[in-house]
């Protein structure tokens, strides 16, 4: 059965211009992302991963090519994309609920239904009692969870995650990656995530896309099929799967890291 395409990335090229010259950041990237799929993007630093996300979000215009979201061209004002950053970027002067509602506020969609949905999400993911607290009172992991709910609340068709865990310490990072992986699957979200962490990429993804170094192009797309010990596939459990090590080695080789 042919699944529905949420994102179609069509021969994207991106050049940066400075007075010193021109840098080719991305060269001819083609990628389709299907509904309900989590795709992770790995590649050497500076290969244009974040640039690609910004292009998909419609924040910057590519030099060549186009991105279609649900068959429509991506624009800045499209409200069907949620973007999650490295840091949570919660606003210190707003309480948790107000932080979660910022997207709806901007889109003029604060109504009873959405408010209820926001409170439900907070409740479901263990933040209900903190809705009147301020960001400074929450731990790093909880803050990142609030940031995810802030993007979920606008009901985006596509979630873009730009190294969302890299600002957290290692233990929190493992725990929150697990949680967010579960949340994404449970809410049946389509997501594209950039990461540096190969293990994280494999454990969370349905497919891993490996980019080459600058100018970034797609080197390989690896579908991940793990025989998880239980039916419920969580990122943590995935790390125990026997195939995990095999994928890890494969991606490591593809990344072709030289120090």
């Amino acid at each position, binding site marked *: 059965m042919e699944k529905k395409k949420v994102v179609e990335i069509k021969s994207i090229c991106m050049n940066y211009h400075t007075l010193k010259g021109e840098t080719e950041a991305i060269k001819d990237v083609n990628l389709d992302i299907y509904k309900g799929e989590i795709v992770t993007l790995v590649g050497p630093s500076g290969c244009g991963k974040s640039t690609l996300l*910004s292009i998909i979000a419609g924040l910057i215009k590519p030099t060549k090519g186009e991105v279609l979201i649900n068959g429509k061209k991506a624009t800045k004002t499209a409200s069907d994309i949620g973007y999650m950053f490295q840091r949570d970027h919660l606003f210190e002067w707003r309480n948790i609920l107000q932080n979660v509602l910022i997207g709806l506020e901007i889109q003029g969609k604060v109504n009873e239904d959405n408010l209820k949905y926001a409170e439900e999400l907070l409740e479901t993911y263990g933040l209900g009692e903190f809705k009147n607290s301020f960001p400074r009172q929450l731990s790093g992991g909880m803050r990142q969870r609030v940031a995810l709910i802030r993007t979920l609340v606008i009901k985006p068709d596509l979630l873009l995650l730009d190294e969302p865990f890299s600002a957290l310490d290692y233990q929190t990072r493992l725990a929150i990656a697990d949680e967010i992986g579960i949340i994404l699957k449970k809410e049946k979200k389509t997501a594209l995530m950039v990461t540096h962490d190969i293990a994280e990429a494999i454990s969370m993804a349905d497919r891993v896309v490996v980019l080459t170094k600058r100018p970034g192009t797609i080197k390989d797309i690896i579908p991940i099929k793990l025989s998880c010990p239980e039916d419920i596939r969580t990122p943590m459990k995935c790390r125990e799967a026997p195939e995990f090590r095999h994928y890890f080695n494969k991606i490591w080789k593809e990344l072709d890291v030289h120090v």
Partner: protein
Amino acid sequence: MYKNISTEHEEYIKKVKKRKKAIFITQILILVIWLVLWEILARFGRVDTFLTSYPSEIWKLFLNYTKNGGLFYHVGISVFETVIGFLAGTILGVIIAIILWWSDFLAKVLDPYLVVLNSLPKTALAPIVILWVGAGYSGIIVTAITVSIVITIMNVYIGFTNVDEDKIRLLQTFGATKLQILKKVVLPSNIPTIISTLKVNIGLSWVGVIVGEFLVSKAGIGYLIVYGGQVFKLDLVMMSVFILAIISAIMYQLIALLENKYMKWQQQ
């Protein structure tokens, strides 16, 4: 707090409180000793009272001025000019900073002019301002504005441009307009900057008002100081300076109170 505190902790608190008290008492003592010394030296003719006056005489003059209401009149005028100049300078400064933030081109174009204006002692402009605007209250208020507005523009604009780029991008991914970005992130995240600008501006506005009053006024604290100086009534000059010090300190404290309130609200 905890009901049962250990004696060790109790002692610690005692020590901190004791130290605080000692600092306060010393501060008061310095003031008292200075005033007493001044009075004694004047009485015994060790300092020239024609040049320095002395506390009891200043106090007598103060009572006189309060009795006939003249003091309140002069203080009222100066406070009025300062408050208006302070508010106008701050509000206009913030508005101009918003315009500069809005148009990067304009900000780049005006940058060298702002730098020059900022390094220029604004009091040098006072005679020109008064000639242009007029010698009444308006001239003095505009002088006060010129003193505080440039630094307000620069500080607030820098605060605006220092807002985390990713916070703005976050709002853009929700489809925010520039006005929404201004209202939802740029202004609220700069409230501490604006409050600290207020603290600077209250002092600067006083500079503008006093200089303006030196030049043209017929009333106000600056007028009293100049008048007293011209007729060699040093007790009048001293009294005016004391009052000026007290009032500007009160105004500064009011702003500090506002800042405290805001910080407390943030940390609740």
